[in-house]
């Protein structure tokens, strides 16, 4: 742990806050993409002629 001086709480809060928000942002983008691709695959399967018979 680096020496953060008397204002360590502010520095830690800034880094932890940014790390959390960045993690949530990455997760949201990745999970949204996966859900969309899964939905597209399902719809394409439904539209195949053999699936409709």
């Amino acid at each position: 742990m680096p020496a953060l001086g008397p204002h360590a709480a502010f520095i830690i809060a800034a880094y932890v806050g940014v790390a959390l928000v960045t993690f949530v942002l990455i997760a949201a983008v990745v999970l949204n993409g996966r859900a969309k691709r899964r939905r597209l695959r399902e719809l394409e399967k439904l539209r195949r002629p053999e699936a409709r018979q």
Partner: protein
Amino acid sequence: MASTETVRPMRWYDRLGHPGAFLSWSGRLIWPLAGVTVLLFVWGLWLALYGSPEDYQMGATVRIMYIHVPNAWLSQFVYGIMTVAAIGTLVWRHPMADVTMKAAAPLGAVFTLMALFTGSLWGRPTWGTFWEWDGRLTSTLILFFIYLGLIALWAAFDDKLRAARLVAVLTLVGAINIPIIKFSVDWWNTLHQPASVFVAGGPKMPMNILMPLFVMLFAFTFLFLLLQILAMRSEIVTRRIDALQRKMAMEPRA
């Protein structure tokens, strides 16, 4: 009578900007881009927390700069990309311009929020206050609200083409705020320090502080590029889903 019309062959930039082609070439970029982003963050965080000295005035709080400045930079850079895409939507009506705008807006909003959050935490020990209604902070807060407004507008319309045109016009109107943010520190009295990196005559910082700042700038910019590509791919898939659902609704049921 034979038609005299000719079909213009696709040029390289047409192929690059075609949604199907974008899905193909961007898919090959994701893992290399993710790898470079992780390496840059590891290197940048090590330099920011261990490999750089304290500032002679601010002490260790200078370390907040290494996450504040990249987010502040991205808050404006993302809006710049949206502005160029807005021109693409209004002038050429290119579908990828709409996709670019829609994917970038939430990312820009989050980077702006993180710039405000880290700036506030840096301001308290440095200036003695979390917030000050001065030009730089207020114009950055307005930028955040502009992003939220554009996101809400996208969501409010069922007709995506109409939404894209309206969002593009409002994006161009909102672009006036970017030079205001940039020059606010020169135009008005402010607690915020003036520009010290991109200035005539070179940066005013020593190399051991400038180096971690640049590495973190690249790390966050690569993260944005990666997330932008992923979000654009999702948006293209969303439009395919919409088109497919419309087709299926029109097909006769067995």
